[in-house]
């Protein structure tokens, strides 16, 4: 069982490193994203083994959806704003979702055919 707290601590260490790096280098990236890149890089260079982070990482990823429920509930504080601006929000979401889907699917298939 100690593998869970240990792997969680390793993830927290990468989060801390990401935060510190973002702050020190004044990078416009969330510390968590930098931490993710640092972790992927460390794994790639063989500095750490996947098994070291795997237990907590897989647990957190499996239940990640639950973790953003409180942030979503925070929407209740913006009801006034949303009441006025629901149309641009919904329209932008639909247009942009269709565009990203079509552009990525089409372009990847095209590049694979040419390769």
């Amino acid at each position: 069982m100690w593998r869970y707290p240990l792997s969680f601590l390793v993830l927290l260490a990468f989060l801390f490193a990401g935060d510190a790096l973002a702050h020190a280098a004044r990078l416009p990236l969330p510390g968590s994203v930098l931490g993710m890149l640092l972790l992927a890089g460390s794994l790639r260079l063989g500095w750490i083994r996947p098994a070291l982070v795997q237990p907590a990482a897989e647990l957190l990823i499996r239940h990640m959806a639950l973790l953003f429920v409180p942030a979503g509930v925070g929407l209740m504080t913006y009801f006034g704003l949303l009441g006025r601006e629901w149309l641009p929000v919904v329209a932008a979401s639909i247009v942009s979702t269709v565009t990203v889907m079509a552009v990525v699917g089409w372009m990847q298939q095209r590049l694979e055919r040419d390769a």
Partner: protein
Amino acid sequence: MPDAAAIVLSLAATLGVYAAARAFQRRIGSVVLHPVLVSIIVLIVALRMLGIEYEDYDRGGRVLTFLLGPAVVALGLPLHRQMEEIGRKRNAVLLTILVGSVAGALTATVTAALLGASDEVIRSLIPRSVTTPIAIGIAGRVGGLPALSAAVSILTGVLGAVIGPPLLRALGIRSPTAFGLALGAAAHGVGTARAAEEGDVEAASAALAIGLMGVFTAVLAPLAIGVLLRLGWLN
């Protein structure tokens, strides 16, 4: 109410509502009734009816929100595995997701600006296609409203998972890598779950798209703000 009691109560309520919403979706088998969407609606209605302020609920909610940090870091593990697996397609994938990230941020912000959205809303829409925990982080950095970005990201995920497969088939997308990347890039976690129903290559490609979309959009978001300011779409 004492702090510990408030924390325990709101954590219990969140976990209970989420577990029930998940069981409900399993029984119904509908993508539209995504458990996150259902949980958020149920909790907002319940807090309103009980007259509880969001700040009080969030004393417990913050505990879960904090865990999003290590959860995003954890995505480095599948990102590493998928980059190894994708092999010689790597450059094509990087280029495709880069273009997808720019297209997503531009179409969302320009559409919203044309329809007269306010600055805060336009800024909140930039990380729309990005997985929710990263979207929250980006929104905070570019002057958007993190809760709005979270909600739009969740809605986008559900929307993309529903319209994605028929849209991609209509476009004649047959490459499993392209199919998975498109679902992951446009609809992140929910899209990846949908891609997993198609096959392993689709699932792995979608997972890769989530990580890359998050990184590229995080890097490009401040640039997008600069472009929008210069064009006069933002003040």
